[in-house]
């Protein structure tokens, strides 16, 4: 099992991260890559930039714990999580999650689990700069619902594995 977790200011190269995860392995049948991107507008307002604040120390520790938990739950061959912090422009990537496994069900479930965690529990906060104002992003109800999936009894996707 390989796990890469990085917080960084710079943009990342999803293709390079994915290649690093699968390089030299022949036990991987499925790779799921999620890239979150800064959109150019929100509710009709043009976005100038987004700033990601985080809780140094806690963010890394918590993320490592959730990656470890995903690895065990879905028997992953590898995971890479890269989360940017600092100022991000529209069109730039914000977050990368890559999961690799023998079969796709585990790879998909683990990627969704990690994204749900990052959206709802990981200590990161987004502030959006509009042309004339700034605003802290409010949590989305759909993210909370999505995250609730993982705390219940084993879901269909696990049964399907």
């Amino acid at each position: 099992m390989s796990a890469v977790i990085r917080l960084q200011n710079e943009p990342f190269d999803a293709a390079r991260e994915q290649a690093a995860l699968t390089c030299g392995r022949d036990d991987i049948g499925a790779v799921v890559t999620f890239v979150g991107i800064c959109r150019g507008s929100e509710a009709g307002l043009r976005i100038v930039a987004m700033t990601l604040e985080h809780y140094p120390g806690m963010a890394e520790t918590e993320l490592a714990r959730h990656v470890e938990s995903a690895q065990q739950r879905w028997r992953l061959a590898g995971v890479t999580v890269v989360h940017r912090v600092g100022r991000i422009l529209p069109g730039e990537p914000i977050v990368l999650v890559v999961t690799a496994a023998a079969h796709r069900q585990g790879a998909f479930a683990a990627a969704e689990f990690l994204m749900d965690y990052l959206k709802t529990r990981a200590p990161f906060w987004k502030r959006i700069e509009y042309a004339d104002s700034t605003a802290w992003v409010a949590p989305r109800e759909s993210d909370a619902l999505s995250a609730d999936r993982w705390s219940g009894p084993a879901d269909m996707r696990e049964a399907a594995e």
Partner: protein
Amino acid sequence: MKLRYFAWVRERVGKTEEEIDPPEGITTVAELMSWLTARGEEYAHAFENPKVVRAAIDQDHVRTDAAIAGAREIAFFPPMTGG
């Protein structure tokens, strides 16, 4: 103990961190929030709706009924919006 503030809680309090020494009677996170609220307008603003403020003790998420005894670092912040 050290307090740390993030996002709009940090903006409202006007600092990223501070050392505090709360009185003996303050035993939970909720009581600490009430005590802070009384320290000034900036704190009152930050904690005006205490239900939406989240807390961590020594970098672990906690509920506001958690005991603060022995804590080295307590953080306050809004709901997380990462990813």
